[in-house]
């Protein structure tokens, strides 16, 4: 279905392995000797014993920990002789990647891993992950079907998604009212968004809080603005290389975003502010809106009041035909290919994606369930209900950036910094991204 790079890679890898695998083992000696040894491991194994689970959210997020602990207990109750050992890992992505890299290269490490979806995680480590297609209950796979693209490539299933993710703008209703905006009128187009921003600005507020030192906001805004201009088919063409980054469509996406920046609709000084540091402006009422992630809804509700928080979905999704609601998967649970208890691990992963755990995540942590059989009715958080409603109304597809190769996504983020700084045009920046795309890997 998806003609993405992610799909193309495994084929090529297998081919290269045939060509070079043997020579590599001989040349690199002991480093690779271990690699040749258990090429077929993964799958099967005992159904009892301890599962080591790497979890990078547990340490700093008490609510997440509660949900996961309850899930572990349920699993242990249902599987006699099986225990779950969670190991807390750092949530910093680059640090976690180094850890994964070492563990997977040496064919050691945990049984179960929490991973970023798409090329940011799963697809970049997929040769170290087990294909769990045959090891999990098909009913679970069916229940998470709309989000499977985050972990499925080449007919293999590398994990199960935990929740849905999307880039949304949250807003403070009191501030909207104070600036003379109707807090309950839905913003559905780009022009309305810009208009609201300008009105907030003239009322003395920061329109949209953002911290873009890492360039993350550049990627987020691409996900947010693309659907109003391009279709899902377009995003697939972009990922597969059929459409160039310098296409008018992408130029328009970039120019819309840059226009918002140059009109002063984001935090002044956003470019040198770390992503971790921009929320306070929204929490303390300096900013009327904040560009954020759907999974951050409860967190921000708590800050400005449950009924005071509103949500703006990507503009243009209501009018786009066919509907293109740019969402993705929050995180994915995977089984290591080198696990000695791969089947047990797969069952555990399935239990983390089942309706019970998904529902618990929804009510406790505020994550919209990837599992379509989970109930999303009752919630104290209106924004959650609104987002859940949108998910069920529109056709959900992956946001465009999620399918890009890791180096492409990074190039896009950093090139846009130059556009914002005024030292490159949108076309120049996109041409540079295209150069990276053309670069042989």
């Amino acid at each position: 279905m998806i003609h993405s790079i992610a799909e193309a890679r495994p084929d090529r890898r297998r081919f290269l392995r045939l060509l070079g695998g043997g020579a590599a083992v001989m040349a690199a000696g002991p480093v690779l000797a271990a690699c040749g040894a258990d090429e077929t491991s993964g799958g099967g194994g005992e159904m009892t014993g301890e599962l080591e689970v790497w979890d990078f959210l547990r340490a700093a997020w008490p609510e997440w920990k509660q949900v996961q602990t309850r899930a572990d207990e349920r699993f242990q109750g249902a599987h006699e002789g099986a225990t779950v050992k969670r190991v807390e890992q750092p949530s910093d992505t680059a640090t976690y990647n180094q850890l994964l890299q070492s563990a997977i290269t040496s064919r050691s490490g945990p049984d179960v891993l929490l991973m970023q979806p798409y090329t940011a995680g799963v697809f970049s480590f997929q040769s170290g992950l087990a294909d769990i297609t045959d090891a999990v209950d098909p009913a679970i796979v069916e229940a998470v079907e709309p989000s499977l693209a985050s972990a499925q490539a080449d007919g293999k299933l590398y994990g199960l998604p935990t929740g849905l993710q999307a880039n949304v703008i949250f807003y403070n209703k009191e501030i909207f009212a104070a600036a003379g905006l109707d807090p309950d009128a839905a913003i559905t187009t780009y022009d309305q968004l810009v208009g609201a921003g300008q009105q907030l600005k003239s009322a003395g507020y920061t329109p949209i809080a953002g911290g873009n030192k890492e360039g993350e906001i550049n990627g987020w805004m691409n996900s947010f603005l693309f659907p109003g201009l391009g279709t899902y088919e377009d995003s697939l063409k972009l990922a597969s290389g059929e459409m160039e980054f310098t296409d008018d469509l992408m130029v328009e996406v970039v120019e819309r975003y840059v226009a918002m920046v140059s009109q002063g609709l984001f935090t002044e000084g956003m470019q040198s502010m770390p992503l971790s540091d921009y929320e306070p402006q929204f929490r303390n009422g300096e900013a009327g809106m904040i560009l954020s992630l759907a999974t951050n809804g409860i967190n921000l509700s708590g800050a400005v009041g449950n009924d005071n928080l509103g949500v703006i979905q990507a503009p243009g999704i209501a009018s786009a035909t066919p509907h293109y609601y740019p969402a993705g998967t929050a995180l994915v649970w995977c089984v290591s290919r080198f696990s000695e208890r791969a089947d047990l691990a797969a069952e555990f992963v399935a239990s983390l994606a089942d309706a019970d755990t998904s529902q618990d995540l929804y009510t406790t942590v505020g994550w919209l369930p990837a599992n379509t059989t989970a109930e999303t009715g009752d919630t104290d958080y209106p924004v959650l209900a609104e987002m859940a409603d949108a998910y069920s109304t529109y056709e959900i597809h992956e946001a465009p950036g999620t399918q890009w190769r890791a180096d492409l996504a990074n190039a896009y983020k950093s090139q846009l910094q130059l556009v914002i700084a005024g030292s490159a045009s949108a076309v120049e920046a996109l041409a540079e991204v295209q150069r990276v795309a053309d670069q042989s890997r």
Partner: protein
Amino acid sequence: MSTAVATRARGQRLRMLPATVMLALVGVTTAFPLLYALVTALRTQSDYGRGSLAVPREITFQNLQDAWQAAGLGRLAVNSLIVVSISVAVTVLVSSMAAFALVHLGLPARVGRFGTLTALFLLALPSTVLITPIFKVTLDLGLLNSYLGLVLVYVSLSSPFGIYMMTTYFRAVPREILQAAEVDGASAPRRFVSIAIPLARPAMATLTALTALTLWNDLLFSLILIQDPQRRTLTVGVSLLESSFAQSSSAVVLTAGLLISTLPPLVLFIFMNRSLMRGLVAGALK
């Protein structure tokens, strides 16, 4: 401090006044991040949200307590202490021995120079590229998850600098002293222990402090080589306080954790400041 300093005129100090003022200002800027970390660690999250650089309105010790408990920093600090002190001791000993051999044990000058250059070369190896191979080697030796493995990796990381630094200082030790001892029949270990070490003690103190600092702050190797949560080091514990998903909810707690992990090196430096400086006492290295 000494007669020469004592007799130096007040006038000279006055002439240095412009430079003094400038450097004092620089000194204020370098001391400020510590103050910033301290203030941030002692304020509430909402107070921090008011403005990260603003003067705090309320002071709390809750963050320090939270950081300490959430990451179990007490036990991790003990782990760090064990690993780092052993690694530092081995590094200083092994590097001093090697440097002594390169300079004062009768190797041709050519060989000594080659040794020093090799140490420099090893120092210049980019760790990033070596992380995965080092992990592999440690695993193949069965040293994963053991402090012995981590200590050996630490020694390999810090001894190139140690050797390089110690050869510089040993070169300043007059050859004649050691040759006289050799003529008197003192063995190589004897000359090392009773002449070289006392003379190089100040340099060794500097090396100790710097190595301790570098290794204490290491996150990557201890995270990767020690995967058993019970045996992790302090920096790993602190890194867990950072939460990328629930953004900014823990900025003050994270800073508290970072501050806690900074304290031991800080204390070490304040403690050693005198000996580091007085260290190379006049006459030691004529």
